[in-house]
């Protein structure tokens, strides 16, 4: 199955990558006070471009659209090759919306403003690049470039343990990605030896028919890189540290975009390239996924630090994506992709909520919180919607993806589906627990606390506008998931074409 390529009349993807970079250069040159407006405007432009692509994308058949290809390092057959299918496109769109939210939220940043926005702008360009690159070296370059700004964001603007967390994040990811690099180079060399073609293009490597043992080896090399990023149990320990220490906008991007790169990698590379190995590793992935879901949900319940709780809940939700992906059927992979989008929206919103609480009360610890709801009603409402979407309430985005993922899994392994399904209850428990301990329990408040709370200000304009897009799309996906499923259906079909045939 070779995809069709629809060339871009206007290099819209390249422009989307360049806009944040150019904006970063402008911010670098101009006065500090221009940093915020320039960043917000550029991210909104990127969001408009990605929405335009989303709306004009043709979901019938499998076509790589807005496709561009230019020679880059011809000696090695490396080119700059970008384009989108539905999977890439939804991820690009998610990246764009998350960055708009992050920038709008960041209007209250005061420490080293210029550097802050430059780091985020470079990060945005790299994140978009990861999702649109079809050349493996270009993909890897974007994948690694993203480490530098994220390292700085956690390390410079984070909280007290930030340097440890930033270094841990960097070294974990770097470790995984070097194995990913070896895997990619291995495939490249193998392709050269077999077919005498020097190419790092995704589609050329797709044509390769690998020996079974080689498939297993390459699968493992790539999977290590992706699993750390997801993060799958037992590689998840960097995530709570990074989330707890990162500034709010950094957490939003980390949860909404960076974690998706891992699962994106599985869906994009592991399934189509290594069909046999994927089948072989299905039980392993199910086991790891279920452990992630149950174990980290338990961990989440035990937390008193609200950011750490949300971080563990992310690992748990990504477990659903893992089992959905490795159910290796249409429903499962569809569910995985929808969960990725939905988790991007909900976890982003939850981290914003945590940031809001910290800004008002200067603590992430549950013992210092509670009883806020009455004093900040608008925030309480939006937080409630996000929490419910995260817990998987029907009608909101979280439900659709997890339901589909479970449905897909159920067809393959009833045990896995049952265990994962049961943990949805735990998921609801910790989300409600989080909400109850931060928003309700007003009766536990002392008089002076009440006095203090009555002075709290509800969401200001910037905060409101960073919440709203996320919440709106939680409803959009939750109420009319068909449009999204229709969008990704053919892509999923392509992803699975070597596994299920056709």
């Amino acid at each position, binding site marked *: 199955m070779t995809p069709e390529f629809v060339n871009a009349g206007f290099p819209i993807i390249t422009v989307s990558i360049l806009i944040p970079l150019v904006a970063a250069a402008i911010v670098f040159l101009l006065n500090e006070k221009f940093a915020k407006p320039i960043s917000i405007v550029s991210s909104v432009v990127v969001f408009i471009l990605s929405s335009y692509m989303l709306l004009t994308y043709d979901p019938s058949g499998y076509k790589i659209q807005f496709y561009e290809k230019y020679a880059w390092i011809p000696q090695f057959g490396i080119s700059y090759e970008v384009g989108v299918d539905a999977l890439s496109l939804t991820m690009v769109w998610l990246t764009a919306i998350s960055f708009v939210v992050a920038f709008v939220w960041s209007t209250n940043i005061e420490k080293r403003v210029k550097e802050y926005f430059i780091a985020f702008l470079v990060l945005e360009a790299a994140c978009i690049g990861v999702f649109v690159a079809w050349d493996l070296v270009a993909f890897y370059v974007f994948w690694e470039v993203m480490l*530098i700004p994220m390292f700085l964001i956690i390390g410079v603007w984070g909280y007290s343990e930030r340097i440890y967390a930033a270094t841990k994040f960097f*070294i974990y990811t770097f470790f995984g990605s070097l194995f990913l690099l*070896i895997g990619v180079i291995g495939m490249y060399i193998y392709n050269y030896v077999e077919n005498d073609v020097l190419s790092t293009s995704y589609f050329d490597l797709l044509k390769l028919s690998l020996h079974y043992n080689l498939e297993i080896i390459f699968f493992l090399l790539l999977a290590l890189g992706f699993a750390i990023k997801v993060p799958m149990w037992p590689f998840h320990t960097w995530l709570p540290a990074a989330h707890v220490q990162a500034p709010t906008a950094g957490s939003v991007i980390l949860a909404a975009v960076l974690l998706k790169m891992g699962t994106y990698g599985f869906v994009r590379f592991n399934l189509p390239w290594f069909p046999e190995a994927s089948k072989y590793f299905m039980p392993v992935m199910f086991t790891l996924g279920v452990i992630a879901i149950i174990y980290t949900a338990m961990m989440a319940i035990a937390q008193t630090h609200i950011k750490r709780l949300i971080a563990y809940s992310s690992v748990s939700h990504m477990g659903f994506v893992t089992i959905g992906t490795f159910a290796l059927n249409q429903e499962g992979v569809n569910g995985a992709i929808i969960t990725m989008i939905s988790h991007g929206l909900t976890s982003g919103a939850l981290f914003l909520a945590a940031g809001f609480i910290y800004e008002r009360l200067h603590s992430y610890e549950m013992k210092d919180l509670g009883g806020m709801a009455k004093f900040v009603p608008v925030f309480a409402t939006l937080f409630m919607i996000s929490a419910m979407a995260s817990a998987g309430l029907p009608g909101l985005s979280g439900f659709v993806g997890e339901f589909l993922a479970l449905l897909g899994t159920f067809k393959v392994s009833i045990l896995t589906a049952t265990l994962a399904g049961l943990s949805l209850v735990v998921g609801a428990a910790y989300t409600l627990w989080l909400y109850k301990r931060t928003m309700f329990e007003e009766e536990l408040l002392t008089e002076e606390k009440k006095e203090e709370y009555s002075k709290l200000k509800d969401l200001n304009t910037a905060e409101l506008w960073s919440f709203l897009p996320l919440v709106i799309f939680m409803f959009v996906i939750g109420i009319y998931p068909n449009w999204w499923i229709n969008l990704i259906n053919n892509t999923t079909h392509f992803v699975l074409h070597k596994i299920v045939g056709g």
Partner: protein
Amino acid sequence: MTIVQQLVAGLGVPNFQVLIPEIIVLITALLVFVLELFTKSRILISTVSVVGLAVGALSILTISEGAITLYGLYIVDSFSLAFKFFLIVFTILAIVNLQPYVESKKTYYGEYYYLIIFSLLGMMIMVSSPNLVSFYIGLELMSVSTYILVGLWKKDYKSKEGAFKYLIMGGAGTAIISYAIALIYGKTGSFDFARIFHEVQDKSDIGLTVAVALLIVGLALKASAVPFHFWTPDAYEAAPTPITGFMASVSKIATYAVILRVMVEAFPLNNAIWSYGWAVLAGVSMVVGNFVALKQKNVKRMLAYSSIAHTGYILAALASPNGMGFTALIFYSLVYLFMALGGFIFLSAFEKNGNWTNDIEDFKGLAKKHPIMALYMLIYMFSMLGIPPTVGFMGKFGVFLALISSNVWWLAVVLVVTSIVSAGYYLRVVAYMYMYEPVKEGRFYLNPIEKFTVGFLAVMVLVIGIYPTVFWEISNVLTSVLIMNIGVR
């Protein structure tokens, strides 16, 4: 014909005109030598050196055709010309940064200049030697000049210690190499690479194996590969920082080039036992260099160990004795020039200030005081670590390609693991610069020349990293020249 050409034609040596760059460099060295006796003006001396070297570099561009001269003792081909060009250019960069440094340290030694140029001349001879004799002469000229350069601060204990260690170890290396040359001559009856190649082609006996092993040991010592690296940290730390930069970049690259040339042209590729030797040395260098660097608190010393680790990365390409490996080695060597010199010049720029000690503590909050310089250092650190879009990634990428294409998986894994270890200390520098508050008050004085050099090299690291095609093409061409030379003559 120019006058020079007529003159040399009169000497009766065929193809003498291809020696023009060497002659210009030699004249510059002698001129500076004489000038230094009569004037105390550092600016004049350094200007003369720079102008002389620049003319030398330009004269390389006028040579359109390679040739063998001095009756087979000297070969000028694209390989040697390209390396000579880079060597001269980076020597100029080191020299222009030497002047502000020694000025602030109040150590007026004019000897620095002509010693550097003599050392450069040695390297130029070395990279264009088709013969063990000229190879040996070049190597010695380079080494002896560098011994003195390290020890020139006579009154400083560290300088003496570093120079002494370097002299003893380097001398041992020289002895080993001469013994290897004697053995090779005894076995093959020739010093000429091509003749040796034909003689040893189908032979494998203990004498030859020992000879090659000794040659490898000697060269590894010069390239500071573990376990022959003990002189490196001390000599690097003791030398004035711009000289350290010169040694870590220019001398190193010349050594890699000559290693490549000797190994490829004199010893057959089809049963290249030497590649195992280099593979082991490279692996050990990566492990030791990176792990010891982790412990360093002094950034200059840390960079010295990092340079040992880089010797490992670069020589690892020899584990794959084919075109891909050689290309990777040449590419990595050329781009390593930019990172290594840049890093050391960065240190030298700050070291001029009395309250700067190269200790990692001094880096705290540097990004606040000198945001642009800190950004340059960040680029160097991530480049040495091998993160795209810097050129360090492209270098490692080439080495990975070479290793995996020759199925040397174990070395690739060593490279991966040690790269991750190296993140520990490179990231520490970045973290100290960006994530701590400044401890010392006031800004540091920086010379515009130094700012320019550091900035220029950092920008090049990024530019070549994003668009490496030109450098890959150069490396490809040089490799094909090298391979074409095998067994010819």
